[in-house]
């Protein structure tokens, strides 16, 4: 009988008890445990077109008017989340920069880090321009800090200048792999970093012109874009896995929700702008380019207005993010501001030419266009002409055009639909009030006197 009890006890302990399992039972076979720096950079790059391809951005710059759910374009006071940008590209880029295991088999490690820094700076620049003060120095630290404080935009700008300089300085000879933007060409990355710095510097023209001028010239000296082949472009593929956002909306989902605005057509049609046939299709009803008044709510018939051009909604349409023409417009403006010694007019003409080449693929009609009295450079209207033409050029990157509108006030004929003015920023994600309450409230207090609003102004916007 005793034996029986002993057997029972032994059996129980054999069956349960020991705490060692097969080594690999809790090793996840479904996901990789290692990622190369360049694979992470490539994934971050996939987020680039998302910076531009957004109806909200196009509404901000009044490129497109909503035909169906007009309410969305009437500048509702609703939050816009920046979480996706931190969790997506920035988390990847931070992982590359923080990694101590980068392998030179994907190219020189300093180059991998430099590229990650340039892209990180670019994403942060976009974020701060849209929202104002945002988490930066305490951000992307994972479990170390789930409630990062918001840094001032001024601090972020200054730090990004430094980051871009560091990136420029650390590059060495040798290309990197998995580069879906520049095919590993470090000279292009170098120019990109400096170009971002140049454009960021210009953004400070009103708030701190001395820093702006200094950084602008430094960046210029370090080497910026010199042709359209340097452009930061995301090239979509004729493949549903990597397709253009607008193709998904307009073609896949059959959504004729966006017409070109009256404002844009009025800017382009009277001067026979050669870019208009690319930007838009003629209205089906009459074969003419007809813009829709931004914010128009009454009985819109999509056949009566110009909708997005077939090149714009192509499945493999490129998304232009930073372009040579933009650099030329910036230099023209800098020349006008006497930051640089060059003449304004040739830069202005060159900017327009490069824009037309970029959008239409040829320089046909450039001269005729430049000869148009409205377009031809007029030194008394230099800032306005540069501003308006830059707006035309930045088509389909509404957020960037909106930033330039906020800084310069051009174009000066944007409308206020239903009495709602064009906003000055995006409202913070409303779940920051749950997830990061103290810091969120401090940032709103510091910038907007406690009142979160799309009409609060960011630091550089005076």
């Amino acid at each position, binding site marked *: 009988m005793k034996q*029986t009890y002993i057997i*029972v006890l032994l059996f*129980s*302990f054999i069956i*349960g*008890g*020991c705490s060692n*399992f097969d080594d690999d*039972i*809790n*090793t*996840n076979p*479904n*996901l990789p*445990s290692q990622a*190369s720096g360049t*694979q*992470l950079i*490539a*994934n971050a790059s*996939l987020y680039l077109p998302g910076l531009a391809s957004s109806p909200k951005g196009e509404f901000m710059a009044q490129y497109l008017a909503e035909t169906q759910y007009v*309410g*969305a374009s009437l500048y509702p*006071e*609703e939050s816009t989340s*920046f*979480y996706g940008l*931190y*969790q*997506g590209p920035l*988390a990847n880029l931070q992982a590359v920069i923080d990694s101590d295991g980068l392998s030179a088999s994907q190219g020189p490690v300093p180059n991998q880090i430099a590229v990650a820094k340039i892209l990180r700076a670019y994403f942060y620049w976009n974020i701060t321009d849209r929202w104002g003060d945002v988490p930066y120095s305490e951000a*992307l630290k994972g*479990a170390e800090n*789930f*409630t*990062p404080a918001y840094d001032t935009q001024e601090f972020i700008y200054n730090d990004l200048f430094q980051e871009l300089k560091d990136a420029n300085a650390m590059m060495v000879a040798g290309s990197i792999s998995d580069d*879906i933007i520049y095919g590993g060409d470090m000279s292009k990355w170098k120019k990109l970093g400096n170009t971002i710095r140049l454009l960021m510097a210009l953004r400070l023209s009103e708030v701190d012109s001395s820093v702006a001028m200094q950084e602008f010239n430094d960046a210029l000296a370090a080497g910026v874009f010199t042709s359209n082949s340097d452009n930061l472009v995301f090239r979509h*593929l004729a*493949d*549903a*896995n*990597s397709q253009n956002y607008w193709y998904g909306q307009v073609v*896949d989902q*059959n*959504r*004729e929700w966006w017409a070109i605005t009256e404002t844009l057509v009025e800017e382009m049609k009277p001067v026979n702008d050669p870019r208009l046939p690319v930007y838009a299709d003629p209205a089906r009803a009459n074969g003419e380019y007809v813009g829709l008044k931004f914010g128009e709510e009454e*009985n819109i*018939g*999509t*056949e*009566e207005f110009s909708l997005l051009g077939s090149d714009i909604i192509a499945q493999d349409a490129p998304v232009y993010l930073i372009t040579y023409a933009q650099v030329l417009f910036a230099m023209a403006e800098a020349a006008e501001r006497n930051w640089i010694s060059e003449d304004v007019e040739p830069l202005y003409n060159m900017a327009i030419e490069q824009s037309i080449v970029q959008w239409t693929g040829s320089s046909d009609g450039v001269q005729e266009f430049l000869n148009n009295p409205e377009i031809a450079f007029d030194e008394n209207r230099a800032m306005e002409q540069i501003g308006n033409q830059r707006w035309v050029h930045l088509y389909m990157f509404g957020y960037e055009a909106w930033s330039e509108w906020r800084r310069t006030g051009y174009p000066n004929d944007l409308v206020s639909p239903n009495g709602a003015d064009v906003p000055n920023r995006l409202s913070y994600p*409303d*779940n*920051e*009030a*749950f*997830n*990061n*309450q103290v810091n969120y409230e401090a940032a709103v207090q510091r910038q907007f006197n406690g009142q*979160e609003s799309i009409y609060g102004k960011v630091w550089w916007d005076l």
Partner: protein
Amino acid sequence: MKNKITLLAFMVIFQFTNLFAQEKTVTGKVTEINDGMTLPGVNVIVKGTNQGTVTDMDGFYSINVDENQILVFSSLGFETKEMKVGSQTTINIGMVANLEGLDEVVITALGISRDKKSLGYATQEVAGEDLNLTNEQNVIGSLSGRVAGVQVTGASGASMGGTQKIKIRGVNSIGGGDQPLIVVDGTPISNANFAGSDESDYGNLGQDINPTDIESVNVLKGPAASALYGIRGQYGVIMITTKKGSKGVKDVQVQVNSSFTVERAGNFMPVQNMYGGGSSQQFRTLANGDPYVDLSVDESWGPKMDGTPVRQVFSFYPQDDEYQQLTPFVAHPDNIKDYYETGYNFNKGITVSGGNENTTYRLSFNDTRIEGVEPNTYLDRNNLGLNASLDLSKKLTVSTNINYARNDAQRPKQGSEYGTGYFTQWFQRNIDMNRLKDYEYEDGTYLHWNLRRPDSNTGEIDNLSPLYWDNPYFDAYENTNKDSRDRFFGNVGLSYKVLPELELSAAVRGDIYTQNIETRTAFGGKRTPDFTIGKYENKEMNYEFLALYNKKWDDLSINGTLGGNIFNRRYSSLYQGTVGGLSSPGFYNIDASIDRPNVSNYLLRKQIRSMFGMLSLGYKDTYFVDASIRNDVSSALPEDNNSYWYPSISGSMVFSELVDWDTLSFGKLRASYAQAGSDLDAYQTSLPFGVGTVYNGTNTLFVPDNLNNPNIKPSFAHSYEAGIDLRFFKSRLGIDFTYYVQKNKNQIISLDVSGASGYSSSTINAGLIQNKGYEIAVTAKPIVMDNFKWDVNFNINRNKSEVVELAPGIDVYTYGSTTYSSVNSYLNSYVGEAFGSLVGQAYQRDEATGKILLGSDNMPLYTDATHNFGSVLPDFNGGLQNTFSIGNFNIAAMIDFQGGGQFFSRSKMLAVRTGQDPLTVATNDNGMNVRDPLEDGGGVKVTGVSAETGEDVTAYVDARSYYRNVLGRRIYEEWLYDASYIKLSEVRLGYTFGEKIMQKLPFKSVAVALIARNPAMIWQEAPEGIDPSAISTGSQSISWYESGQLVSVRSYGLNLNITF
């Protein structure tokens, strides 16, 4: 291996045909010992043989036996008696009734039978016949309202076997994943779910149990009851005991059970029938002047449906008989109802059961075919079950329970973007549904209702692709989702009685299924043609060893258990989906993918090793103490911290043994404390990368949004419970009261964090969530007469939850969120408040008066999406079942109720937004329709306070702007509804044929019944057309918003039960 054992069991069972010598005939009469009433149907068996008989109508029996043999008399509800034959030829027996409730035996954890009176914690048992009142197919669904402290929420019957969810004692997990463990005859089975919150609801897998096989269901509510299941039993256990054959006289019982019910869609949301499709009250016109219906607008803000001849959608199809014709623009008030068909549910079952002295067996087969109320939907299910046991010797018994279930279904889609949910959300009131039925013209062109506008010059529509919505018949017949599942579960066990007081047993338990899901999107609809196929395989094995020790001395009884268990799970899946479209119509295959298809394979392995012991002491049948301890080692926890102990202790005192008060037949006080733990899913302690899109041959990888935690610890639930169990008047009135406090600590949750940290969420040990509540269960037999009996079962429970803490620095946890038209809403939990607050945009109100603030355009102003509307959880719920037996008739009715709780209805919001709700055609106090122009006295009257001036304002505003752009889009406060309801969920009217008729028929018994499932909502606080008892869809574990809910289904039918 298992198959071999089963085969062996069969062979042995059928070889038991021993014959015994027959020495003499003994006769006698069996009566009830107190009142001398004769007892028919008592088993009289010769002990140790399979020989026996049954007493006749007058209690007489006659049997041939040997002098040395012993007769065993047994009957349900009486204590079994044995009598040595000796020289007697007449043996009259007086049987002693088992006083109901006093010696109830319940099946507790690990399948151990215990005297209910000895338990120090609450359990509540539901008999299989109650669950089967109206042949509900999902056992979880049929528990609704039947057990105190158990809340069942689930899908409408239209979902065809959709998910039924169960919560025991409130929400105990911050993450909402607190589903109890389902155990069938000791075998834990998976109750997994393959549904999302929209599209098809494939249902909870627990419904693979054949309801007619269920003898009883015992719900172990707290950790005390489930401590012996360790990690997997933290949220309670649903113990299902299946019917078995009975030992005794060799006998074969064949039972046929069949039911047929008709299913009707019901409870439609009211809609207006004055204005038709469009966005303006004026018709648009073609070049020739013909007015036409604006097909591009899926809303009903259009012209009045006054019979004006117009070009309707059919007139733009050259293939249509009405091509280019004008037809009257009129309302089709029943266009939504017209879509639904009459479904049916045909259920046939047969069971064969029996046994002899050494064996028992029961074999069952069930076939269910359901055709849904939505066109082209069905669910077929087959269940095959075998229960058998065989005493190999006096000490050694082998037993098995094997179940096979097969499901084959084509289910409707739900949610705001799929299926028929859109009818009340986005539709034109002028659409003639019957006209859409033939959705394909002879030349293969599909007929849709939502198209681009015609070219204003030609009057033709060149692009006939639907804009936002497909013809619902096209969806139903072309875009089909199919799923099927094959499943085996059961066990084979051996038990060996080493000593009279010591039994050793071992069992192998398994649950194996393969789930297949296939979805199709056809050419010709609004979506890109698509095909997906998924195969999901799960194997859960439990290897169990148990030693049971039972000994009783004079006053002292001991009950001990020692055991060990190894749980092994292996789950794998292979999913493939086409990308970018299909290469040719009708070819649904991954090969047809235009672009690189989505492919993923997944493997999960997990093991838990456990050992446990329990000791129970009883003194004088009055005082009882139980203690248990369990150790679990989980492979999913960090290797150096993966072993945990869970203790429990409980005690009870049967004080009725101590007091001498006749009215009180039974009284017990009980109290318990227990801990139970839970671990996490496999692979959550490592930090992997995600696999991103492949761009032009470059594979990309990314940092996942959820941050895993290598230092995670198991969570612990601490539960304290006390109760009293009282029976009065010879147990005709029973009251069971329980008070409990349950604290769930260190919950493993995926906590939403600021995205600026680089992660959207992090797996952490967080928080303390506390539930307090009480449960009252009342059973009464107000009338007990020979041919009139009335039974009442009532229960109610009240639960209050509080989130006591989350994580350092975090005082909000977001359980879920939705975004519609850029407007967010959340289900949040705040520290110091009840679990699960609805959060969204509310009216801005004047602080002093509470009046609504109005903007300069007199439209209401709204807050941002951070307004807390309070908890969604109900205050109380319960059920009431009344059963009457009058002669051969029996009537039963089940009522479910819930008080409090709330939800947000997107269906209602959108019905208003799109001008379908009757509210949008109301008459204002000027006597004008709200849609009439403001200058004519139309418009919606708005009162409030001007935000600018602070003055009171009463004004009329344009109905479309008000409902479409403000109320119906931005002010969630308007669309919150109280979830209280009282529902008549089941009714049965049965008739059992009497003995006299039976004698002429070749059957032992025949019973017929009229049955009704979900016949009526008696009362609800929420508006008509939204069923608050079925608002959660698919795998959504907490009901907080409703969107595109399927219609309610009411079933009426007939049930026939024949025993041979």
